[in-house]
């Protein structure tokens, strides 16, 4: 119980003071993973051997009194859509079940460079398409707060493993809310950085103009420390933006005096559960009492974000997933004819939700419908982006619920449109390429509720400042799922 609940700073200090070795620490977390995985099932792959080898190397450095970085020697895990050389990367799909990448994603390389000890790969909705991790091609993951409930998705494994204290931090990816919504459902901190702030090289593509990698952690400070390690321009990703990367910990100030907060009224309708609204209104009031200036504002085109997203994301997905043809990598179904081979391979390799989105996207891009759907959606995307530009002329941060409800039960919702609606507050942020963070803001019937803070492009700093202040003045992040105390 002691170790697994510690912050990155505390674990680092223990390593530096030689109170524990990286090998001991890694073993401790691996044991906890073994004790919890039967219930949580957050991991698709556990890399015990390579993890212990990496830890042993760091212990040699520590023994020689060499300086170690803040993440060095600490266990970490990645969503299974980030390439890891020599370690299976399935994307939660049967079609990539046996795929072993020949190279590391940039985020993988950066974490290795920072000395993080990779203990495994995490479950997800197949190709990151879903909001509950029920669409994994392998098995669903459970929410550590209630095993009968979903952890959210698509980065469900990334959120559930942090909530279950199986690893100090993880990376997830977010195309329409896939870091923030599971972070909210599992009571952890999840940041979707500005589009272009973190390299997508080696991230298996879903919707390239929306995908972004970000950290999931127990606390806001841990989150900033991980972002420090993974953010930055990458020549290997032409959509990554050259910008002056700050030390994100400099923004961790317990002070929101004078901070201008906008509360977009459109984010408090559309299926929002009254109990969740109450939690978020209380959260906003807390920040107001701490000196922030709060005002209601309006983003008039928000109701169009959902349909816009469900044209653009499937369109990009249908194009990106054309590569799974059974030729260069992945599963292949045997057939005498080339076209039949393609069709069988994709029919057997992809799950229902992925096929549904490929169909939708192919239709939206097909001759005769392109202007009516795809081009139209791209134009509405401009209007949505302009709405944000207008309000950010007046406010530093926008606040909303992360999701309209807390975690629902596994198998409870089967209608795709109803599931899509759960991302109604997170999707607009991806369409506009903005950074946003979800942090624990309270509980409804024992289930965590997340509050979303949205910032201007490349202003992750103000999100960290506001989130840190909230966290320092509340205790929600200190709550731990009950079953962890049992396996302790």
């Amino acid at each position, binding site marked *: 119980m002691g170790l697994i609940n510690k912050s990155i700073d505390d674990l680092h200090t223990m390593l530096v003071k030689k109170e524990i070795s990286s090998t001991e620490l890694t073993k401790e977390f691996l044991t906890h993973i073994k004790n919890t995985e039967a219930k949580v099932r957050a991991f698709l792959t556990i890399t015990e051997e390579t993890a212990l080898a990496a830890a042993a190397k760091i212990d040699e450095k520590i023994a020689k009194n060499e300086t170690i970085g803040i993440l060095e020697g600490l266990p970490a895990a990645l969503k299974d859509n980030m390439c890891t050389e020599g370690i299976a990367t399935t994307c939660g799909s049967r079609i990539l079940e046996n795929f072993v990448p020949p190279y590391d994603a940039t985020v993988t390389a950066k974490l290795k460079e920072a000395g993080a000890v990779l203990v495994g790969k995490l479950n997800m909705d197949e190709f990151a398409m879903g909001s509950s991790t029920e669409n994994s091609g392998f098995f669903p993951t459970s929410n550590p707060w209630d095993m009968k409930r979903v952890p959210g998705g698509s980065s469900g494994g990334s959120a559930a493993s942090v909530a279950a204290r199986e690893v100090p931090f993880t990376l997830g990816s977010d195309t329409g809310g896939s870091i923030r919504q599971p972070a909210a459902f599992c009571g952890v901190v999840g940041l979707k950085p500005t589009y272009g702030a973190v390299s997508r090289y080696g991230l298996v593509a879903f919707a390239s103009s929306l995908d972004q990698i970000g950290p999931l952690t127990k606390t806001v400070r841990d989150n900033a420390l991980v972002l420090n390690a993974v953010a930055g321009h990458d020549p290997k990703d032409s959509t990554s933006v050259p910008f002056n990367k700050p030390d994100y910990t400099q923004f961790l100030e317990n002070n929101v005096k004078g901070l201008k907060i906008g509360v977009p009224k459109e984010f408090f309708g559309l299926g929002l559960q009254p109990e969740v609204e109450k939690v978020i209104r209380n959260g906003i009031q807390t920040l107001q009492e701490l000196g922030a200036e709060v005002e209601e504002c309006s983003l008039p085109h928000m109701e169009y974000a959902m349909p816009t997203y469900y044209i653009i994301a499937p369109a990009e997905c249908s194009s990106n997933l054309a590569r799974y043809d*059974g030729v260069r990598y992945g599963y292949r179904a045997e057939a005498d004819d080339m076209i039949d081979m393609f069709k069988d391979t*994709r029919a057997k390799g992809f799950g229902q939700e992925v096929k*549904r989105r490929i169909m939708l996207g192919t239709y939206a891009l097909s001759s005769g419908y392109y202007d009516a759907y795809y081009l139209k959606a791209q134009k509405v995307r401009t*209007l949505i982006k302009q709405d944000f530009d207008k309000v950010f002329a007046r406010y530093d941060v926008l606040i909303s619920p992360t999701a309209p409800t807390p975690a629902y039960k596994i198998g409870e919702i089967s209608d795709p449109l109803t599931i899509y609606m759960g991302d109604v507050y997170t999707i607009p942020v991806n369409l506009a390429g903005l950074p946003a963070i979800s942090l624990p803001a309270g509980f409804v019937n024992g289930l965590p509720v997340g509050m979303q803070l949205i910032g201007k492009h490349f202003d992750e700093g103000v999100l960290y400042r506001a989130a840190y202040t909230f966290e320092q003045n509340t205790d929600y992040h200190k709550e731990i799922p009950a079953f962890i105390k049992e396996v302790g």
Partner: protein
Amino acid sequence: MKISRKEVEHVALLARLKLTEEEMNQYTEQLNSILEHAAMLDQIDTAGVSPTAHAVQLYNVLRDDEVKPSMDQEKVLKNAPDAEDGFFRVPRIV
């Protein structure tokens, strides 16, 4: 705009997906319900609005045309379902 069962068959061919009868029926129904929802975009006047492909402005990224080492052929072919003599092997095309 309603998508017909016949269109779903055509789209499945374009997407290179072999669908069962059941999937065809299911997708016809589900795509219609999603597209019905998407039809609300028609309510917005977008005359004169330019489309956004990326929320953050992108620029062409150029580099010098220099020869650099690339991945070993063996490594590249390692994940191939079938390979021979340094090539990907596929079923007969013609």
